[in-house]
């Protein structure tokens, strides 16, 4: 099938007139609602869904702060190799 023919098909389908809502449709919807009047409270999964992006952002921020503070504090302190060397010096001297 040619592209032009497919496009023609879509164009013809576009001109279709949509069905109009029947008279009193809003009333029918309201009847349905009155049968179950209470709007259900948000379920646990809804709440999790709502809060998850925020919790994830907060968790990421906390991790970032921890990593940065660790980097800052460790930049002034001696490195692990130096500390290990310091500790092993007396042992090496004894032997």
């Amino acid at each position, binding site marked *: 099938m040619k592209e032009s023919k497919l496009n023609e098909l879509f164009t013809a389908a576009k001109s279709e007139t949509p*069905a109009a809502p029947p008279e009193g449709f809003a009333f029918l919807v309201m009847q349905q609602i009155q049968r179950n009047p209470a709007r259900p409270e948000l379920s646990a999964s809804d709440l999790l869904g*709502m809060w998850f992006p925020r919790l994830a952002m907060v968790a990421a921020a906390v991790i970032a702060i921890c990593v940065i503070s660790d980097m800052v504090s460790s930049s002034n302190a001696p490195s692990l190799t130096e500390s290990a060397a310091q500790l092993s010096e007396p042992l090496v001297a004894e032997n």
Partner: protein
Amino acid sequence: MTAVAVQPLACFGEGRADKLKRGFQYERPVSDDAELLQRIRNGAQEEFAELVRRHQSHVFAILYRYEKDHHRLEDLAQDTFLKAWRSLAQFDGRAPFQHWLSKIAVHAALDHLRKQKRTQKEIGFPELGEDALDWLHNDNKQTDLDASQAREILAGAMRKLSPEDQLVLTLLEIEDRSVKEISALTGWSAVTVRVRALRARGRLKKALEGLEKK
């Protein structure tokens, strides 16, 4: 649209104020959707009927592309509004109410297509009318196609596609929505929409060729 009478305002000037004194009633729309929603949230549940009246044509226009039977279409539209009612607490007002409602309608349509696909026993091609068959078999432009014939042919071919393919093609090719809009309505990424639309178009072409050969 419902309207209410308002008190005369000094800022209208003398001419207008005189008119108002003589009993002329200046009318303005009761409220916009946000105001109505606020009232519903404050307990005026009956105001939801006004929201339904405002948006029912829009919802029917979306759903009509996926269900032609009038009773089933009505059920689908009712279902859409019930879902909207039940999730009103989740509507945050960042987008217009109609956009939010369209999203619910599109998801209701997708669920409906999935249900149809599950219950569809045989995936054979339906019987097409003579005019529709004529158009399919004729490659020259002499045969004109009207909306009902196009609908008939598309409905026959679309049955072969997945619900997602049917949805993306309807939104993109028939409703002329942009990729960005489809992405917002379906929750799929723009890339997914583009890829899915391209593949769906290919599959539709194959399905139409199947109809042609039949």
